[in-house]
């Protein structure tokens, strides 16, 4: 089993939490996990990405080769497209549809979403909206994990356990909210 995942978004959107939850779930499943992340300069509202590699075999490279990612998982619709060169022919793009507009020249939304027509396997969910309805607007990143769940080849319970472990210190209320977000993301992707 091998899953190479590009995580993308904007600094502050919780990319590293996404990596931590999926990584923890993979470890629960006795898989190898390697994850390269971005620190420093890129945190200031800039584009952020992380390479998350999961495998039943030892993992060599810290970076995913071009044209071979199984999935791009994005908390922001423009950022997902930035990493298309990494995607394999039959890879999935799973993205939030709510844009994060902090630049003056952000593309026109309709035009931007049209770009997705050229990608064979896409799941689009309005993670911000779903998270807001759950009363936990900051959980949109977890909604995206839920939407990706069917394609991760990791048991859903392990993802739930990943959330319990990663958010354990923050108390039961935060854990429950995030578990709700995870399930809501899964349900939204199935519809």
């Amino acid at each position: 089993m091998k899953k190479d995942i590009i995580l993308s978004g904007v600094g502050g959107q919780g990319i590293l939490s996404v990596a931590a939850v999926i990584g923890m779930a993979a470890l629960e499943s006795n898989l190898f996990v390697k994850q390269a992340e971005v620190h420093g300069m890129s945190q200031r509202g800039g584009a952020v990405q992380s390479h998350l590699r999961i495998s039943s075999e030892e993992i060599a490279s810290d970076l995913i080769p071009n044209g071979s990612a199984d999935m791009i998982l994005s908390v922001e619709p423009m950022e997902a497209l930035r990493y298309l060169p990494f995607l394999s022919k039959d890879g999935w793009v799973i993205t939030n549809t709510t844009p994060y507009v902090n630049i003056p020249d952000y593309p026109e939304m309709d035009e931007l979403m049209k770009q997705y027509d050229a990608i064979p396997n896409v799941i689009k969910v309005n993670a911000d909206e779903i998270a807001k309805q759950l009363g936990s607007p900051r959980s949109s990143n977890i909604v995206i994990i839920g939407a990706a769940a069917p394609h991760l080849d990791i048991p859903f319970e392990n993802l739930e356990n990943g959330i319990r472990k990663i958010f354990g210190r923050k108390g039961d209320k935060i854990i429950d909210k995030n578990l709700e977000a995870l399930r809501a993301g899964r349900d939204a992707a199935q519809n």
Partner: protein
Amino acid sequence: MLGAEAIAQGAIDGGMSGVYAYPGTPSTEITEYVQNSKLAKERNIHSKWSANEKTAMESALGMSYAGKRSMVCMKHVGLNVAADPFINSAITGVNGGMLVTVADDPSMHSSQNEQDSRYYGKFALIPVLEPANQQEAYDMAHDGFEMSEKFGVPIMIRITTRLSHSRYGVMPKPRLDENKGTLPNDPKQFILLPALARKKYKKLVELQDDFVNASETSLYNTYIDGKDKSLGIIACGIAYNYVIENYEGGKCPYPLVKIGQYPLPKNMIEKLKSECAKILVFEEGYPIVEEMLKGFFDAGYEIKGRLDGTLPRDGELNPSLTAKALGFEAKEEMPVPSMLANRPPMLCTGCSHRDVYDALNEAMKEIGDKRVFSDIGCYTLGALPPFNAINSCVDMGASITMAKGAADAGLVPSVAVIGDSTFTHSGITGLLDAVNEKSPITVIISDNSTTAMTGGQDSTGTGKLDKICLGVGVEPEHIRILNPVPKMHDEMVKVLKEELAYNGVSVVIAERECIQTLGKKKKHKAE
């Protein structure tokens, strides 16, 4: 564990008594890990930030003098700052084991250049360790102290951004006790008077053969045979991962020398040369190994790598570049849609630097542009729109000294914009130069009371900046304290205009805490 964290844990488990560092991406997490480690707290391992890399290096050497194991960490350009004690520490040698851990930043993810610290290791004539993965990073830090004590010199550990910021599982080794602390046998060991230094330097030169021999038998250098002798591969550090990524089960068909310890193992590389038709070198950073193998006359043997265009001359390696160099066909790639906009980093909403630049831009309107020298920190982002407020960013502290030089050349007034942490790192001495000559410069210390760019580490001058300036000799009436908030804009412009008009050294301290650290503190309180 992040590569950086693996080094920290390895050093703790290896009996380290203190880490000394100034924050700098991608090295910061090493020291932060020690600061947050329970074991480090129990053992009372030193981990407070130093004012700069030079003070850090010297403190680490002092701890080694006292017989304990120490580590100093920095980013690559930090080693320039610490170069003087670094080179000389190889000549004094060590008492307790000492590790110099340097994180290079090829592709300049957050740096001004991509210099390769392995050159510094060679320059200082000491062994350099370069881990390929997180486990080796841990092992090298753990065992590095013993190696340092055995050879009597500091050992460099060189990593790059990618390994520092990449996570993988690490198996710990037995936890060693700290050294008890014993003074050097030779009371003159650390005295580099010329007569003594000459002897010590000869001794260091004599040690070079021992270092090469150690490299031949090092666990980190391996000769992995392959059937296809049409090519031999040398893969240094993390580049090894990118090479074997291309082969099923990591089994490369060509003979391969994996390098993790320098100086280069001569016999191993001779063997590769005698067995293979040509050699391809994969190394992160500058082509130091390739250059060494090529020599001056090219020696009639084909060496491929970054110098002949097989790999790019600059920038970080990755599995795709490596695959191409090994002759693999590129996988099909989807293009990036041309409509995408760039999303550069920017100053946070509510950041005090914004208010400083708004006021400065207005105050400079009548004076003219192209005369604001700046420095290294979040406020360097003032170079980008909408501010376009600064005209230089060279190295830590250069804002003040460049403004002084420009003022000497007749550019009056010249302005320096520097952060609080950068000021205490390397700005104070430059300010003294300006005070001594009464140079007509206006120095703005944009003080957010933290080292913000690297994630909000403590700043060594917090609460003392005005006193430091007074002590250096800035006239009290030309040390002005501002509160950089939007509603004080007019007042700030007025003060800046007054000081810009003054024909001498002014320091304007714009003081408001970083909103990121403030937010973290509030959150911490609420929890």
